């Protein structure tokens, strides 16, 4: 059926597969972990991962092997691995499925990563709302501990590893890696100023790697099937598959694992079945709420890190949100800004104050009280945020605004000119702070 061979979703697509340890073991689970502990030195594991071309699936797409290699080699103190399972980016729901349906591949990935960076303590930071996911991970952890895959002297190699599940409490920002660290430390989740980076001063100020669920889940396969096999999938610079979360106005929303580099068009029209009601495509966000909007003219762009970047957006978290012609772009931008305003942690001035200011302007425009100078004001405010904040949330929140103005300026102007939303003429003005 499937045109592309899934890697991460493969097990769970088997009828009856529930993600239990025995099932995972039956398909070769934990053999990669055993293999690295017994046969492959940490430095070699890092080399393999570098060679595979694996890049982070959490948002920034940073090369995973390279990130690991920043951990100081002869550091005498503890180092930590944190698995980022905070998945809160609107439009993104892949980690959730990976966790709920096949948790052990992520756990095995954690083991491999810990071996590579010499960590004996890992944390899984899971989004607070993921009740079921937390339960499933805990169950899987119990199974793995009982099978002695974690704990002391794993596989008799003398390697010790403790893995702890830590539940968040509902803040989007805790997915940002340094806020995540603060949160694990028991503090309010607020990003830290970088540098120093987590690889040098991370959790409890010790060297730390933060990796996304999907990133880690890839590791057992890279070890078992080789870096070359993995690197051959996708494009030369964006290797492997990605689980894209296709949502919005498509006929078949869902998680699809495809090699990187297939076109947006194929993703939307072929894999996700096209636009609901066969309406016209108006806009698409290719990588989660933080990614700038694209237009139909970008449909033939390959979905890899470089190509999407080239057309002014990013692959981000892999959440593909499709909007048909009935969507008001100003409303969509306002909606996203409501989210960002709500989730801005409030630590740094530009984001804290800017998000509220921008939101007020957007609400006015959408509510029919726009002023001609508002559009330039929005651009100016975005400029005062971008590149001046503590964390990348600043870039994230201005992306949707700047891109919608760039691609749909006329629609903003129409709102202002006609003093109402052309799509939602009865839209109520909400001005509460």
């Amino acid at each position, binding site marked *: 059926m499937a045109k592309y061979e899934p890697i991460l979703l493969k097990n769970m697509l088997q009828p009856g597969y529930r993600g239990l340890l025995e099932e995972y073991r039956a398909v070769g689970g934990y053999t990669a972990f055993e293999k690295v502990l017994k046969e492959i030195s940490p430095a070699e594991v890092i080399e393999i991962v570098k060679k595979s071309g694996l890049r982070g699936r959490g948002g920034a797409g940073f090369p995973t092997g390279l990130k690991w290699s920043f951990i100081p080699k002869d550091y005498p103190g503890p180092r930590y691995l944190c698995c980022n399972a905070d998945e809160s980016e609107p439009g993104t729901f892949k980690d959730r499925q990976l966790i709920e349906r096949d948790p052990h591949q992520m756990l095995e990935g954690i083991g491999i990563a810990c071996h590579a960076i010499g960590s004996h303590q890992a944390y899984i930071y899971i989004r607070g709302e993921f009740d079921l996911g937390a339960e499933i991970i805990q169950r899987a952890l119990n199974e793995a501990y009982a099978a002695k895959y974690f704990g002391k002297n794993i596989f008799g190699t003398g390697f010790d590893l403790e893995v702890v599940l830590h539940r968040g409490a509902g803040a989007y*920002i805790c997915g940002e890696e340094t806020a995540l660290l603060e949160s694990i430390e028991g503090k309010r989740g607020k990003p830290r100023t970088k540098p120093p980076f987590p690889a040098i001063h991370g959790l409890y100020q010790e060297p730390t790697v933060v990796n996304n669920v999907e990133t880690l889940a890839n590791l057992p396969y890279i070890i078992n099937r080789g870096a070359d096999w993995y690197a051959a999938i996708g494009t030369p610079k964006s290797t492997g598959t990605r689980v894209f979360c296709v949502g919005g106005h498509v006929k078949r929303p869902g998680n699809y694992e495809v090699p990187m580099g297939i076109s947006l068009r194929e993703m939307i029209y072929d894999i996700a079945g096209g636009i609901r009601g066969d309406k016209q495509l108006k806009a698409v966000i290719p990588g989660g709420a933080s990614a700038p909007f694209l237009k139909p003219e970008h449909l033939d762009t390959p979905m890899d890190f470089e190509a999407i970047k080239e057309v002014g957006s990013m692959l981000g978290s892999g959440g593909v949100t499709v909007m048909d012609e009935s969507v008001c772009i100003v409303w969509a931008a306002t909606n996203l800004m409501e989210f960002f305003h*709500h989730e801005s942690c409030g630590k740094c*001035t530009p984001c*804290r104050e800017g998000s509220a*200011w921008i939101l007020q302007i957007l609400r006015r425009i959408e509510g029919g009280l726009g002023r001609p100078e508002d559009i330039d004001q929005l651009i100016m405010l975005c400029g005062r945020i971008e590149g001046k904040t503590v964390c990348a949330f600043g870039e994230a929140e201005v992306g949707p605004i700047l891109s919608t103005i760039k691609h749909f300026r006329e629609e903003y102007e129409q709102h202002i000119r006609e003093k109402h939303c052309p799509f939602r003429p009865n839209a109520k003005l909400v001005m509460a702070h």
Partner: protein
Amino acid sequence: MSELIKLKINDKEIAVEKGTLLIEAAKLAGAEIPHFCYHPRLKPDANCRMCLVEIEKVPKLQTSCSTPATEGMVVRTDSKTVEEAQHGVMEFLLGNHPLDCPECDQGGECQLQDFGHQYSPQVGTFEETKRVFPKEYFGPLIEKEMNRCVSCLRCVRYCDEVIGAYALGSMNRGSHHEIGAFARQELECEYCGGCIQICPVGALTSRLSMYENRTWQLKKTETVCNYCGDGCSQTLEAVKDDLTRASSEMGTGRNGGDLCAKGFFGYGAVNHKARLSRPLIRTNEKELEVTWEWAFNKAVDGLESIKEKYGPQAIAGMISAHCTNEEIYLFQKLMREQIGTPHVDSSARYGYINAVAALNSVFGTARLVKYEDVVAADVLLVIGAALTESNPITGLKVKQALSKKGTQLITLDTASRQRETYISHLPNLATQHLQVRPESEGAAICGLMKAVIEAGASDTAPPALVDKVKKALTAISFQEVEAATGLSEADYRKAAKAYAGAKRGVMIVGRGVLRNKDGYQNMLRLAELALLSGQVGEEGAGILAMAMENNAFGAVEMGGVPEFSPGFQLNEGDKKGHTFPEMLEAAARGEIKALYLVGEDPFRSLPQKKVAEALQKVELLICQDLFPSQATAMAHIILPAASYAEKSGRFTNHEGEIQKVRMAIEPVGNAKPDWQIFSIITNKMKQKSDQPYSRLIGYDSPDAVWKEIVMSMPSTWSQGAGGDLSSATAAYADRAEISLSIKKPLDANGHFYLHVGQHLFHAGKLSTYSEGLLKLLDQEMVLIHPEDAETLGIEEGEVVSLSNGEGAAALELPVKLSKKLGRGTLFVPEHFGTAAKALLPLTIDATTQVPYGERGVVKLSKRSAG
């Protein structure tokens, strides 16, 4: 050690120490960088984004408050890009700000005003609705106005990083972010005022001076706090003769700009309406207001006639250690030289004399270590000192030391390890806490000595001392020590190993030792312990004894005690007069006929009956004080004295640092500074003159007195710490007689062990005249451990009764639960009534005559129903 690196800022080449933050480097290059969240006292947080600068080859602007300068860096703080970023941040900050400068107490000293003036765009573009926070009551002393907050978190970071109280935090997110206490409660913390001081804007201000003045109308005077012996530099701010604020400037003084609740909120005592403001004379049980001329004549005539009738020895004087060095010096000079009596003492007698006398005896000096040494220490041994309550700034220095990785803190106290949620408690931070049973400090010290000796004393310890201690220790077994203190041999060995193994070990000794049974002997033992451990005489190692009163050290040094003349010259034989308890005895016997009390109300410290007996017996009682008291009510002559804010002079803190006190306001009413009063009385007596007193002041200022003091000091007098101690310690070792024994463990018989002592928000009686501090605590209560309370079925707030079964009136007090108390102990603050003390036994130190009466066994009972 520090490496210099070169960089360029705005084309100017400068060299700075490696690691210098760009914002500091820029200062050196003459460039001001606007900032809000940056504060040299705090770790960088880089949240306000006001300090962005351009660095060559770095794509984004960088925060100069968190970026260290590196070799060859090329930095611009004045480019168009930087200016645009600054405009952006300023406009963001001003957007939601209420701009209510005209009624803001920070106006005139506000960073938002200052930087806003210079770094804002000419025209604002914010045309939206401002976010408005509802008004919230934030406790009695701190005004919270969140609409003015710039969210720089300086307050929170100060509270966390410097104080360790963790009382403040962020609430809500985004533009709704505000500062508050947990769960929107009223603030409940140490009330050090640090958050107010460090807030760059008017978001946190003092309610004590709310809407009273504009900052630029205030006259600022830098002086020294007059509560405890920490000796904090304090800036008093006044309009005319009213004190309206107290603060301390960042980086100044021994405290580096940090204060405690007393220093920040306690200044109100000065302008209290109950102050004595005119001389009074008692005739036929009536108090009569008189002129100073009259009062001086009366006092001089009275003293002269007693001297004539009974001899100079019939006159005795007692002065408060709150007075300045100059005053204490003049007082003892008046007594010793002019009147000719050796009987002069000061309130150092209540315990601090134990420290100075013992340290002087062993080391020849009491100046052994400074705060810098506390901060640099790798092992701190804190004995019997509740620093957060008694000496908060010394406590801060200990916390500062702990921020260095690997610093060990050993505390020895009857307190438990637990802390109140938002108030720091050193045992809670300790690497090892030796929680001893009440009254077993002496035994615990023996345990430490034994452990040190058995592990091998330091080579630097005088051999004679080692021998003597070894011999004395043969009489002692660890079983006895364990039985008395409740701690195991292993505990002592561990602590002794850490302390003796320190590179720079600093011992801090507090009230638990100095003001309690065997204080002098225990202090000698601790001095010996330091010698045996090699923790004295070495760079950075030594002992710091805590003074409860701001000038206790100075009082002893200036000769305000019978055992020493100025400069610690030992008085022996006839030259050594009575200590204060002896004076009262002598008065009761009819030997002392005139008593001159300066700033001292003995009824507060000693048993009422004894004091009354003595005071009734004397023919002349002169009281010179700030406030009416039980003693002034019996005085024949009452002289109104000026407070520390109304005079100048010098205080010596417990490190031995001599610091200048400066006059902030004119004396209230007709009060006069003590030094003038002493000088006039001395001159009047000397010259037998009828001249108006104003011609007889003699010294034109305290500086003139100080000059005389310095000139008259013995050549051995040294103000510096350290020096070679070996000859002094060797001499001590030769003459020392050491015998050790363990007292039987105390048997409380199912009753409680009561401590009367200092509360965090008060110092002595004086603080209870301060409006601010009264808002934090205005009545006595009894503290009890929650588990003890539960066993007895007692709840917070319930009134219980304390008695001693020996006839003293039972005392009824409300209960407050406190986890930091040891089980089986109770605590009552000493600042209000004297009834709690009346329940406790009094013992007098055999050597120093220090009266010990703040601990003992009491019975606690629930009030019968109804």
